[in-house]
């Protein structure tokens, strides 16, 4: 696998959308290729950061109360 192939698969690698065989190929390339590994680390970091930062906060209590009235 060359860098082009690796970068083309990086999103799917990070999102766990590759087959086991493809995962192994990407892993093998990353071990030997620091620039691609930098790309990979950045992608993983970004994905985690977006998850952590956007996944905070609760629905307002009055909205929950109103919906309970509607639903039950």
């Amino acid at each position, binding site marked *: 696998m060359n860098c082009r192939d690796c*970068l*083309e698969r990086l999103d799917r690698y*990070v999102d766990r959308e590759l087959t086991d065989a493809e*995962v192994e190929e990407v892993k093998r390339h990353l071990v030997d290729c620091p620039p691609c590994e930098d790309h990979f680390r950045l992608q993983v*970091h*970004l994905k985690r*950061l977006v998850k952590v930062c956007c996944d905070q*906060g*609760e629905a307002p209590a009055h*909205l929950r109360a109103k919906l309970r009235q509607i639903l039950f």
Partner: protein
Amino acid sequence: MVEVAEDAAETGGPAAGGVPDPSPRADGDRDRRDRETAPRGFAEEAIGHLDTLYRGALRLTRDPAQAEDLVQDTYLRALRYQNSYQAGTNMKAWLFAIMRNLFWDRFRGGRPEDVSLDGDGEVSLYDTLRDQTAMPEAEVLDRIAADEVVRAVERLPELHREVVLLVDVEGFSYKEAAEVLQVPIGTVMSRLHRARRQLQKALHEYARESGIVHADRDR
């Protein structure tokens, strides 16, 4: 380092494939639910997704009042069409699909299929390689305030933002996201790729402007 690769890949997101119900329940709850009438079980399960739907609505509308309206309308529509929901399938995805369609109908005057797409063609790998100099280092991201990350997500074009919400925030597989968005998986992938590039650029700009990284570190 392969250790890093393995560790991060394992926690990078859920495995592909449908997850019937993303919120696990205790067996006692399940028994109780089974004893209840179907509509009440439906309502219980639906309201269990309220917080995550509200957060998604807030990211889509960027306005608390509109987010409340959108969520309320989503539940009203879900209640009306509850017979079309198959028990045991992914209710979160079903609710997100309703909310997302309402968002486009109500707040944007039409489904995005009717809106001109924003250059949603092939992802150019050349662009990715060329843009390397505009990327922050992974460690730099940790020094960026959470508010700024949320702002960067909220500034994404809506078609890109909704994919990031589904895949990165909610942990949907590409297939699930494609079903919610009613687009091919390839479109999910290209929008996601573009969205991430935009986020990287935006956060890099912010890091530079706020002095987290200095301009002379840019090559």
